[in-house]
């Protein structure tokens, strides 16, 4: 007869929750949900061994456990600290934690470039959200920031090492999803960088594209969608297809404009983690509507920039002119495509292999 498992009682920000022994403080907080969940940049619940790198999830343990009620001497990383029975944790109720988090954000931003206007991740970037919520608007850093050359690691993935915050998520992804990891962290300390040894290509396995989804910043981006459009102009749509790969869940989000699919990603939950990993065929090669079974628009948080300008529940009004005018069509005063050079029907940006270049805009009037 299986013995009843004893549950640990934990108090996080004065909210009591019962969790199984061995749960981390972060996951206990996620059981409660809402504001008490510490932010996490490196921890990823779907990747084993992740966490403990970025220190954004620091919390204060005000009471160690029922048996030993002394507080922990320092702030602890909640993603790596397991709960004890009777533990009391302060997250947003502790000014010390908020102050420390502010410091951590400042550290993360020391070498992070301010190129959000250029970066494809802008609008869905964890670091952007984190610094907006917890950071200070100015920087005190006066020295040269570390910079790297942009690198194409593989046919579909672009590496901007300058933006990387060294969370190691992509390393764990490659370890746990693919047969052979081709990239890793080279060098040590502040010189460490994500790279492939001897410029190897990452394209040899079918799941490496997931490093794009797990990357909390814009260090790893999708080359097939590079610079094509901003995320807030695209409409996220839930879709699925029967993927031949048994490991691929086939459930994705299509980022569409009209009938063009600009980008395919996995579905992310409210913590920015994917619900299921998808294969590279789904991600990079299925860019047509006929490849997919569209389920409907994806729910996006109201405050997110992605929901900007998307009018929910709007039905296209019926054309009434022809009905009233005995079938005569209204006279069109101007077809916008006759003047506008943007969104030309004959140019399909989503079908380009990589980013668009000046050569892809043949009718450009040669503005210098």
């Amino acid at each position, binding site marked *: 007869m299986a013995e009843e498992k004893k549950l640990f009682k934990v108090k996080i920000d004065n909210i009591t929750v019962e969790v199984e022994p061995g749960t981390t403080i972060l996951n206990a907080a996620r059981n409660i949900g809402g504001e008490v969940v510490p932010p996490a940049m490196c921890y990823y619940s779907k990747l084993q061994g992740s966490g403990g790198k970025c220190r954004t999830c620091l919390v204060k343990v005000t009471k160690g456990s029922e048996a030993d009620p002394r507080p922990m001497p320092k702030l602890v990383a909640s993603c790596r600290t397991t709960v004890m029975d009777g533990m009391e944790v302060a997250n947003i109720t502790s000014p010390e934690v908020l102050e420390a988090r502010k410091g951590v954000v400042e550290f993360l931003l020391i070498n992070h470039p301010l190129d*959000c206007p250029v970066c494809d991740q802008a609008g869905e970037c964890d670091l952007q959200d984190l610094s907006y919520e917890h950071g200070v608007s100015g920087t005190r850093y006066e020295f040269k920031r570390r910079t790297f050359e942009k690198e194409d690691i593989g046919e579909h993935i672009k590496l901007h090492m300058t933006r990387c915050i060294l969370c190691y998520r992509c390393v764990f992804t490659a370890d746990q999803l693919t047969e052979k990891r081709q990239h890793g962290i080279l060098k040590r300390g502040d010189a460490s960088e994500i790279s492939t040894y001897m410029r190897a290509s990452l394209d040899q396995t079918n799941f490496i594209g997931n490093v794009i989804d797990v990357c909390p910043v814009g260090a790893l981006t999708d080359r097939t969608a590079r610079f094509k459009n901003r995320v807030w102009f695209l409409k996220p749509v839930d879709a699925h297809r029967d993927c031949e790969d048994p490991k691929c869940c086939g459930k994705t989000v299509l980022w569409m404009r009209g009938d063009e699919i600009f980008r395919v990603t996995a579905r992310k939950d409210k913590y920015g983690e994917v619900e299921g990993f998808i294969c590279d065929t789904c991600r990079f090669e299925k860019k047509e509507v006929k490849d997919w079974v569209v389920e409907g628009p994806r729910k996006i948080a109201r405050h997110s920039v992605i929901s900007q300008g998307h009018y929910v529940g709007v039905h296209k009004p019926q054309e009434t002119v022809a009905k009233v005018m005995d079938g005569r069509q209204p006279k069109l005063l101007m077809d916008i495509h006759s003047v506008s050079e943007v969104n030309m029907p004959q140019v399909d940006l989503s079908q380009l292999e990589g980013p*668009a270049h*000046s050569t892809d805009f043949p009718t450009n009037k040669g503005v210098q």
Partner: protein
Amino acid sequence: MQSLTNRATPVDRRPMNLWEKLYLPAIFKGMAITLGHIFKKKATVNYPEETRPFSPVFRGLHILNRDEEGRERCTACGLCAVACPAEAITMEAAERLPGEEHLYREEKYAARYEINMLRCIFCGFCEEACPKQAVYMSETFAPSNYQRQGFIYGKDDLLIAHPQKSITENKK
């Protein structure tokens, strides 16, 4: 009835006296007022020849700015378009090729940038949203046109002249 303001005066219904019955003095009094206005400062200007000075915060026609070296500042981040309440701004971005560094400031640039002046309400949100100081509103009106086609402003209408090139080179 209680009056809404304290400026209401009751209508004078007394019968007119002799001076008022003469009628002509009132006519001359009115003419004097009219004549006095001839010598006053005119409220109007002769528009195309003369123009009024604009306030420094006037929001007129947009321009796309260049930096000191003449490179386009716009990086097609889309913040102006998402800030635009009239949805007048559209753009398409492209990646800068090697050898185009003298044309564009950042690795990404707006290959196409259009403002539909028929939609624009000149609120200035685009100018405020721009993180690269690329879009500004100048002190000119949008010129009138007989055709709707003339109000779709592309990059060649919006970009300012190259600071290091002569007028004839810029005209090209």
